[in-house]
């Protein structure tokens, strides 16, 4: 009964699709990306000393604890961030290029209540700037929090992008403050 009903609905949908080809019935989300950066009034090497250890995310204000294994070995190292609210996020190291002052990571699974995204990955890099200044560039790639059609507003493309932008910017702002206060 239910099957027949579904089939009838499906056929009706097909018929509608034929007469109204502009109606979008289904399409998966497109991957999104964003880049945030901040200029810091400190040499690049000094900034890298603070953020360059994959096993230590304590420079992030929202992170209470970092535990992990594998050091800074890409494709081996993993870490678990315990956020101040109690949630945990497990991340794997994808790239570690100390000469470039760069590392990359990805998160296989993340609770959309923590961050409304899927397949979230990122790369963070410290770049030297003239006058003993530096720039921290943070890239993130992700899909929205809802992988099917018609996402609820809080898991839409726009909401996911906004949440990631806010997270990166908040962390970078705090990093700047922390480093510029160091002597």
């Amino acid at each position, binding site marked *: 009964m239910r099957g027949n009903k579904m089939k009838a609905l499906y056929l009706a949908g097909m018929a509608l699709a034929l007469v109204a080809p502009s109606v*979008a019935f289904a399409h998966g989300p497109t991957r999104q990306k964003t880049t945030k950066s901040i200029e810091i009034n400190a040499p690049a090497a000094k900034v890298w000393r603070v953020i360059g250890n994959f096993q230590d995310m304590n420079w992030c204000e929202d992170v209470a604890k970092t535990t992990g294994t594998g050091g800074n070995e*890409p494709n081996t190292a993993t870490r678990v961030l315990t956020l101040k609210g109690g949630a945990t996020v497990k991340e794997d190291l*994808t790239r570690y290029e100390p000469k470039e002052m760069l590392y990359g990571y990805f998160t296989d699974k993340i609770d959309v209540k923590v961050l409304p995204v899927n397949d979230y990955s990122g790369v963070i890099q410290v770049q030297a700037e003239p006058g003993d200044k530096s720039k921290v560039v943070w*890239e993130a790639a992700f899909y929205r929090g809802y992988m099917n059609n018609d996402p609820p507003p809080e898991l839409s493309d726009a909401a996911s992008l906004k949440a990631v932008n806010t997270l990166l910017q908040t962390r970078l702002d705090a990093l700047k403050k922390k480093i510029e206060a160091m002597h």
Partner: protein
Amino acid sequence: MSVAALRGRVIRAVGAGLWLAAASLAVTPAAADEAFITDQSASAVSVLDLATKKLVATIPVPGKPAGIAMAPDGRRAYVTSPEGQDVSVIDTAARRVLRTIKVGQDPLGIAIDPTGKFIYVADFDIPHLYKVDVHEGRVVGDAQIGASPRGVALTPDGKLIVAADRNDDQISILDAASFKRIAIVKVGSHPFGVTIDAQGKRAYTADVKSNTVSVVDLATHKLVGTVKTGLRPYVVALGKTSGYVTDEYAGTVTVFDLASLKTVKKINVGDYPEGIEFSPDGKMLYVVNWFSNDVWAIDPTTLKVTAKMQVGDGPRAFGTFIRKVP
């Protein structure tokens, strides 16, 4: 002057010499190759002149274009738009979209047969492969394949079609004439791109979850080897003796030996490399970096990066994107 710029000068000088030689023989000189790059975030296709290494055109293509198949004669390019649920037919010389063809729900992977008459489009939402007659501009066949298929490729003789059934960790092999599936071969976890060698003997899948390339014999329908890659391999390109795979999360291209299937080297490229393809003469390899919005040229003999070309936002070029200009 940078090495890349210097190299460009030498190439142009040699090119001029060839042109003169060709002119004296009263043969029309070959124009430079071009690359048609699908800029997904920008909803456009960037056209690169691969001799001058310059962006020469930007063609608006709505619907977040991702996949591409270049016609064998280089006159048309077929571009899939998952959000537009269609294939855009591009007149490559005129740099414009001639028309769009509605195909499936989430068209992504696409390949063209050697006659240029049919394109095959995989739907990543539902397990279907569509056959499209490009002259009639409509879907003429629909075959059931595995779950959430991504890449599609044909043997050079056009007899076999291979689709990477991502969520079933397998490839489907179809007979092109009957458009029926004749075999299923299990490969690594979540195969994405699929590439077939020039002899039509082997198919290579880039398995995004197991960080491997799987090698399948197309005659025996058997998995004959596995290559360890960098993180999140996406697409394989094949040279005469080596294979090259883009490692999305590692930001590298893993080079492996086609005979031993051992890794030879890793080349650092841009961020989140995806599409990769050789020039028609096999002398240059092009890598499309999704995050860094550029295309890098790599000399396959020295494995050195010789040029970086800026394109639009979110380039993917998933498929065959190099145009040999007639």
